[in-house]
């Protein structure tokens, strides 16, 4: 097993947002998390990547305990978290953002081939190389965020709401790119509201409610969409 979260509890101050949550990801697997807003998905990811302190529980990556490790040490191991919404270096160029994505030493030798990979996935970024991140469109910013993540050569790539707030046509383009990354063998956790997007990429889904896993689907090919919608919204009567 590549990655495992056991009975994790974390939050802000005295308030626990994630409660006793467990999940796991196998090598090469693509796992989707979905669920209503404000139920702890982002907090979970921020805890995993070391931005928020773990209060209880354990996070294991590549067989080693990474609970409460410094964020940079977690990144250095190849667990890359692409955060939600426009988290970039706004007044730096596309190129500078991507260069900083390759900040950790283990990517040094592969920098130019990683640049090529990102450009072949998102040709638009190559066209906008010298443009400042803050002047890009929403879709381009999201592409850049993922590009920055790929520059870090992920062993496990975590995408937080890649499709949020995007026009349908751009969403489609992005979904294709994410599926391409998935097909290239990168293990992934994708968080999104759009279950359809997740179904196109992931083999397994977790429904996160009230800070914990409330449902787990064993294999998405076995369940149909109506069932998942039912999980999400409850039974339509």
């Amino acid at each position: 097993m590549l990655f495992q979260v056991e009975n994790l509890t974390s939050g802000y101050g005295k308030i626990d947002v994630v409660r006793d949550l467990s999940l796991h990801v196998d090598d090469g697997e693509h796992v989707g998390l979905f669920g209503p807003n404000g139920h702890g998905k982002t907090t979970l990811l921020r805890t995993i990547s070391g931005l928020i302190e773990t209060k209880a529980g354990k996070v294991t990556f590549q067989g080693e305990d990474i609970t409460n490790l410094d964020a940079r040490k977690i990144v250095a191991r190849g667990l890359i978290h692409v955060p939600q919404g426009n988290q970039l270096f706004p007044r730096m160029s596309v190129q500078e953002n991507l260069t900083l994505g390759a900040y950790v030493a283990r990517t040094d030798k592969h920098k130019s081939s990683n640049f090529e990979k990102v450009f072949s996935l998102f040709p638009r970024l190559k066209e906008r190389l010298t443009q400042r991140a803050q002047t890009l469109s929403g879709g381009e910013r999201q592409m850049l965020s993922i590009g920055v993540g790929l520059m870090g050569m992920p062993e496990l790539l975590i995408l937080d709401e890649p499709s949020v707030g995007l026009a349908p046509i751009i969403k489609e383009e992005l979904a294709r790119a994410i599926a391409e990354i998935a097909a290239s063998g990168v293990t992934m956790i994708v968080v999104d509201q759009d279950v359809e997007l997740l179904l196109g990429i992931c083999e397994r889904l977790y429904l996160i409610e009230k800070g914990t896993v409330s449902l787990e689907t064993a294999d998405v090919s076995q369940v149909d969409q109506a069932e998942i919608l039912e999980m999400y919204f409850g039974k339509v009567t």
Partner: protein
Amino acid sequence: MSLEAIVAIIAGGLVSGSLYALMASGLSLVWGTVRMFNFAHGALVMVGAYSAWYMSNRGGLAKALQPLGKSIIESSENSGALGGLLLPLGEWLVSMRGGFGLVLGVPFAILCCGLVGYVMYVLLVKPFVGKPGADLVVIITTIAGASFMQNGVQVIFGPRYKQLDRILTGPPLQVLETAIGLQEVLVIVLTPVALLLLHFFLKHSKLGMAIRAVAQNDDFAHLVGINVGQIYPLTFVVSSILAGLCGVMLGGLFFILPTMGAQELLFAFVVVVFGGLGSLPGTIIGAYVIGFIRESSAYIFSLYWAPVVLFATLILVLIFRPRGLMGGEES
């Protein structure tokens, strides 16, 4: 206004602008990255001037090392083979009684300022980073640190004014009938070089880029693997080195005394706010604009009115552009 006066104002403006630019860029860098104002920045200017003086002047380290040099020569006469090795060292120390010169003095000042900046961060800033109200607490701790350094220097070096040796000696440069001292010319020429080096460091080196990354989005900086906790002290060191350079230049123009740098710090604050908080290009442009305003108002009204004109300009700028000249731009 005569042509001579204009040349004099331009030269004076460039000199003041250079000094403010060196100082304010350090302040701006720390503000942009650590989100704190360093009130000991002026004291760092003073540390730079004193350490350059201590290394370069005959009354400094060279004088303190004379007895050691002499005793090495004496003892080397009756200690055989080892003495043969030590003798040149002793003779060299004695021969340096005129001081080690600014060739060693300037690098020494840079080293000292970097070190003091680092220690200052560890003692006065680091304990409060991330705590509520840290920015206010750090104002107090850095004021305390400045006071400590000023009085420490007074105890060590005494209250007598000192001055750095002139790097260039010779008649002043004549520009359209106006004499500009060579030391002033040096300041005007070397400051852009230093600022250009700073630009390349921030733009093209890995650590410089990390500093800008932390300034723009520290959360994301964590997620690309930058050691944010290491970037803060690094920023203080870079900023302190800039203050030290300013001190070396001030020490070559005016007298060195424990309270030097305080007046410049005040103007540097004006520059940072005027140029736009956290914007380095804004700060540098602001520094030269403030320099020119200061020199021309000193010429037209009087030196005592210069601060009045400056603050009036600042207030006007803040009314019409509350974020300063280039606030919210490139950091």
